[in-house]
């Protein structure tokens, strides 16, 4: 992945953590025992599994004699399951819970109780919207910049002019909603004046629902040129639907996707461009953060810098999207196209 052409945007460059690195970054001391829990939205999605691989890598590297548990709810029980696992983790006295939140602010009471019991709450991928009950959020990328990236991909695919629609995950997924909002904000710019966002629909992160929703978008909007799907399930289902129905010439697909899942669609032109960050890196960085906080080596205060192994130095800062909340910004992410997707898919 290191050899890939990484594309950092202007907005991001300004925020890149390294450039803010203060004085001395804390070097985390390995070998301290703490039990950690990695809690994804639900099990069975490839990207979460990749995050787990990254966390396991960090776990070994830091030689933590404690346990790293990868537990998650079943998909149909995501909200209740997350709350339950959060509560259980607190009673078990886990050092930290690393949460990709799918429960909105409903998780807050459980998370606050866990915090009160001494368990650190580090969110990643998807934060707690109000920031309550959360120690720090490891952001894969600046949420504001995702909107710009998606708007730019749309601009390049549509040639600056045309209709697009969004196929998202669930209507209450915090991260996707934030990205869609930031894309709508970006689209107000003069550069995108001729791009029209005609619809936003939801495929519930289920392949069959997303597939059918993509097709109905095409039926409903005869002049549709692009489906933008900021979810790995949605983008692949949309691409397959367009390919199956022979619509790739007319309607393109873009959004956030995994190279291994998208490679054939990129090569045959159904999905010429899409973006993603590395979920292994996200898991790796999240683990470093959680380990540091659980072992007391990190206080979790704004301005604190630490060294995250192979990824370099990171700093805790105020989250511009959520008042009073703190984040660690990972960044950057990669835009894939015919030129680099095959190598990344391997």
């Amino acid at each position, binding site marked *: 992945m290191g050899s890939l052409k990484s594309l950092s945007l202007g907005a991001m460059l300004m925020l890149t953590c390294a450039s803010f690195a203060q004085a001395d970054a804390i070097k985390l001391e390995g070998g301290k025992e703490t039990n950690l829990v990695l809690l994804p939205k639900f099990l069975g999605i490839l990207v979460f599994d990749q995050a787990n691989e990254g966390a396991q890598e960090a776990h070994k590297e830091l030689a933590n004699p404690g346990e790293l548990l990868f537990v998650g709810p079943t998909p*149909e029980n995501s909200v209740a399951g997350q709350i339950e696992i959060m509560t259980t983790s607190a009673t078990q006295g886990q050092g930290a819970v690393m949460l990709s939140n799918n429960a909105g602010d409903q998780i807050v009471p459980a998370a606050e109780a866990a915090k009160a019991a001494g368990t650190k709450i580090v969110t990643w991928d998807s934060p707690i919207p109000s920031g309550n009950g959360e120690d720090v959020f490891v952001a894969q990328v600046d949420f504001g910049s995702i909107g710009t990236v998606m708007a730019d991909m749309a601009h390049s695919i549509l040639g600056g002019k045309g209709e697009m629609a969004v196929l998202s995950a669930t209507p209450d997924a915090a991260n996707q909603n934030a990205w869609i909002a930031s894309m709508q904000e970006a689209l107000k710019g003069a550069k995108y004046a001729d791009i029209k966002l005609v619809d936003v629909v939801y495929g519930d992160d289920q392949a069959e629902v997303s*597939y059918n929703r993509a097709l109905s978008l095409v*039926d409903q909007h005869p002049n549709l040129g692009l489906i933008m799907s900021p979810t790995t399930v949605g983008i692949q289902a949309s691409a397959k639907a367009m390919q199956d129905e022979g619509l790739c010439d007319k309607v393109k697909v873009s959004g956030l996707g995994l190279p291994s899942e998208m490679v054939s669609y990129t090569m045959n032109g159904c999905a010429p461009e899409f973006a993603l960050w590395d979920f292994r890196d996200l898991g790796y960085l999240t683990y470093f953060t959680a380990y540091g906080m659980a072992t007391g080596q990190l206080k979790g205060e704004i301005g604190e810098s630490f060294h995250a192994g192979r990824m370099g130095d990171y700093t805790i800062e105020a989250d511009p999207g959520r008042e009073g909340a703190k984040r660690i910004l990972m960044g950057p992410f990669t835009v894939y196209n015919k030129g680099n997707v095959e190598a990344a898919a391997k």
Partner: protein
Amino acid sequence: MTRMMEKLSPQTLRILALLAVLLVILLFFSLVIPNYLNGRLFNRISSSVAIMALIATAQTLVIITRNIDLSIGSILGFVAFATGSLVTNNPDLGPVPLVLYSITIGACFGAINGVLVAFVRVPSIIVTLGTMALFRSVLVEYSDAKSITTSNLPQWLVEFPNTVLFSIGQMQFRAAFVAAVIVVLIVHLALTRLNAARKLYAIGSNPEAAEMAGINIHKTVFVAFVLSGALAGLGGFMFLARFGTITVVAGLGFELKSVAASVVGGVNIFGGSGTVIGALIGAILVDVIETSLVRWQLVSEFWREAVLGALILLSVAADAVLMRRFISLRRKRPKSDPIPEKTSVLDGEAR
């Protein structure tokens, strides 16, 4: 009209009533949605019904025996995943072993349900509510939280569902749809022509009487669940071929959709009556409503489920009313005296 009604069996009337409702719904949506009735609509519905038709047929077999299978979506999901990982690891396997593999796994899961319902005698709604969660958890465990992706599947498998066998105008008859219709027809013929199939209806109609008639209720119910599982397995194979991407959520919610399709299709939820042709039309009806609602601008995302539920209820009600009307038309015929001549009655009871 009346004379025609006399000739038709109630089951046929039921199907006519359903078709009438379907027609009304199509007409309605063609009025409110621009550019609605075209070949593309047919292609959409037929492709998506291909899977639901199998599941609704499976559900119907179980409902006829006065039972229910809520684990059907989980079975489908598991089979789709298992078959997907089999073919990922053995890309040279042909269609026949893969389909057999799917059906066998499905049948095994069905057998678990069947044993618990028929022999351990736990009510099916409880058994399958349990196995619905259980099978899905087994899938989560088995899958190791990974997913199957299209890129790992052989080309023939991915292309199979959308292969156009023949077209009428814009309407394409694709392999998956045609295969599903053939399966439904086979099951239909079996249910109407096979001696053993009568047992399913008898058990659902009056279990006590079935027992008295010497029918082995337990075995028959067990077989119904196994067949249902096998059909769900076949559905899993079709699901894999159509969507390619299989995560642990595959088939989530299919259990209720299949019940809806069956019941809309005139299958009595208390057992004893119903046809799989009805269930097929029920599946089409539900799918048409669902697909059309998405395109109907008036209904927002958040109200869609509610409107879908309301429309399903409405079509069930319309169908019931039509059915009653048809039957009363049949009744109007002059009937022959049901009571035979009783000239010799005084020799009888009155001593």
